[in-house]
């Protein structure tokens, strides 16, 4: 501890000529991106190794039995996909192509993986973004209420709800929701992104909702939103459960802190204390959970998209995995890995924005 006469930490306006303290945020970002790049390479390596562990023959899986019995066709297939070269060479080729934005050709759909992803990803984004926004609003809200009303009925009820939420098998709930809400009660459509009769809006972003809004196609917009509802609902339930639980324990911990008591001692109204003092401090752990929740959401889409015939990343991942479509799987792995890393980066940056002690100095 400094002597009583010490100045507070100096941030003198006149910086020394040395460059080391310049733009600490930039340096941090660069360093993080560097680490992330390494991780991404690691991700590609992992997916490459995994997909080549395949005991099954991808050729047979994708050519069909009769074609697979013809050596000429098999040889041509293998040559086309570069499967006849040694593994390290294959990997290097993959990496170099990657740098050119070429993710290879799907062995299953016979289109460029990039094209496949380009149409699959927005579909998943539509339900994922909706789900995460809803989940955060509801989950953080519920968790805070439960913490503030600890021990009371509201708390017990919310805890129960969240426990059920995280215990639900997502795929089963999707089935039940589809059956009850769509099949029996016909409250919402449960298949695909649009009704069979509706043509998709012009492809601007790939998000049907946004694209139809931008093109003024209100009917299409309504149809797209209607189709979004069930998948989003199912995904939201699990994430709400998760967020409620973690928010509750985060807020409980903050409520015990001295600075909350100080805020009360100042005579601030209850809602000010809650929003300004409590939630702000609780935001740090809550952010971590939101990041995790997004990951859980992406996982959830694999299970949910099957049931709602949603042509998104989850379906694509599943198709690729079960058909041993190596480029397809690697494409998915790569993409998902990158998304996850990006989310972690954003979360870390948000930490810095919220908590000044964490800021790079």
């Amino acid at each position: 501890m400094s002597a009583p006469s010490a100045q507070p930490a100096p941030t003198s306006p006149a910086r020394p000529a040395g460059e080391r303290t310049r733009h600490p945020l930039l340096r941090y970002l660069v360093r993080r991106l560097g680490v992330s790049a390494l991780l991404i390479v690691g991700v590609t390596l992992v997916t490459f190794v995994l997909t080549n562990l395949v005991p099954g023959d991808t050729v047979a899986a994708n050519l069909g039995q009769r074609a697979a019995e013809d050596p000429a066709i098999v040889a041509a297939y293998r040559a086309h996909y570069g499967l006849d070269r040694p593994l390290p060479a294959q990997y290097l080729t993959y990496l170099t192509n990657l740098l050119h934005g070429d993710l290879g050709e799907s062995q299953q759909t016979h289109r460029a993986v990039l094209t496949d992803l380009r149409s699959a990803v927005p579909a998943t984004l539509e339900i994922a973004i909706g789900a995460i926004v809803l989940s955060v609003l509801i989950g953080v809200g519920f968790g805070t209420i439960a913490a503030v009303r600890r021990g009371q009925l509201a708390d017990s009820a919310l805890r129960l709800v969240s426990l059920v939420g995280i215990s639900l098998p997502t795929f089963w709930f999707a089935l039940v929701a589809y059956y009850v809400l769509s099949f029996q009660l016909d409250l919402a459509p449960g298949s695909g992104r649009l009704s069979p009769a509706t043509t998709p809006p012009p492809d601007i972003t790939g998000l049907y909702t946004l694209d139809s809004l931008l093109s003024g196609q209100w009917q299409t917009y309504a149809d797209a939103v209607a189709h979004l509802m069930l998948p989003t609902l199912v995904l939201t339930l699990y994430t709400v459960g998760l967020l409620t639980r973690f928010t509750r324990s985060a807020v409980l911990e903050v409520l015990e802190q001295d600075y909350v008591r100080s805020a009360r001692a100042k005579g601030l109204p209850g809602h000010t204390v809650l929003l300004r003092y409590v939630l702000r401090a609780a935001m740090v752990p809550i952010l971590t959970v939101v990041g995790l929740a997004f990951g859980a959401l992406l996982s959830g889409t694999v299970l949910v998209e099957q049931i709602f015939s949603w042509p998104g990343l989850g379906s694509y991942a599943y198709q690729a995995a079960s058909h041993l479509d190596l480029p397809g799987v690697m494409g998915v792995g790569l993409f998902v890995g990158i998304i996850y890393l990006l989310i972690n980066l954003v979360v870390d940056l948000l930490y810095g924005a919220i908590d000044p002690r964490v800021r790079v100095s």
Partner: protein
Amino acid sequence: MTVAAVDSGGLRARFRTRIPRAWRTPLGITGAVVATLWILVAVLGPLLWPHNPLGQDFPRLQAPSGAHWFGTDELGRDVLSRVLAGARVTVPLALLLVGLSVVIGGILGLAAGFFGRWVDETVMRLTDLVMAFPTVILAMVVAASLGASLVNAVLAALVVSWPAYARVTRGLVVGIRGAEYVLADRLLGFSALRSLRMDIVPMVTGPVLILASLDIGTATLLLSGLSFLGLGAKPPTAEWGSMVGTAIAHFDAWWMGVFPGLAILTVVMAFNFLGDALRDALDPHTAGVLGQAETR
């Protein structure tokens, strides 16, 4: 469930990880009861099944009735028997999965935390790599690569589950290894292994076990999810997840999917209730690793 303690006396503090009676809340007891029931169902197995779960003897796609409480499926099998039989698959496997994750993750985490430096770096980078993927997707890829089977599904789930334990264990160890009683024992001449065994492991076991108990539910969901996707149990094995998967094609026969799913739900809820009660009883606020002094 007392974890054997460090010997008392001398410089070593007396700590024990004891599960206090406070876990016996209504939720905790409900969880314990339901979990035990399901374990019994798994153990008693064939004694409880009204019919052969694999026997395709009955009329197909019958709604629930007096003869078949849960109806029959598309191949004429009794759904109730299959649901009960499913307990023998899912419950033990989930427990096995968690057990293995704890052991593998725990050992790696202990090593990383205790020995530090390159061991620590390697293990942490490895966990980073695995945790760079959402769990189901990675598990799915691994399971697909290995070929669809229950064993492979467990292996795939193991691959995605161990990192969490490694990280937690490492964190705990790093927190303890500077503690005075540990240092004192090293000064007394304890070897690294002995120090690990006597000083560190007992303190780490408690929190890790709580984490594990909370994780059984997640393990169950992961395994049944993989089976639902067709990457786990193969027909005709009666497994809850794959039963729900088959049910998609037979919409009208809602009983085919609803009951197995309910089974999963109740098992997971039971373990979550129980895990929650245990964790609350140990009260993380006061029971930081070094704060777990003998209570009650």
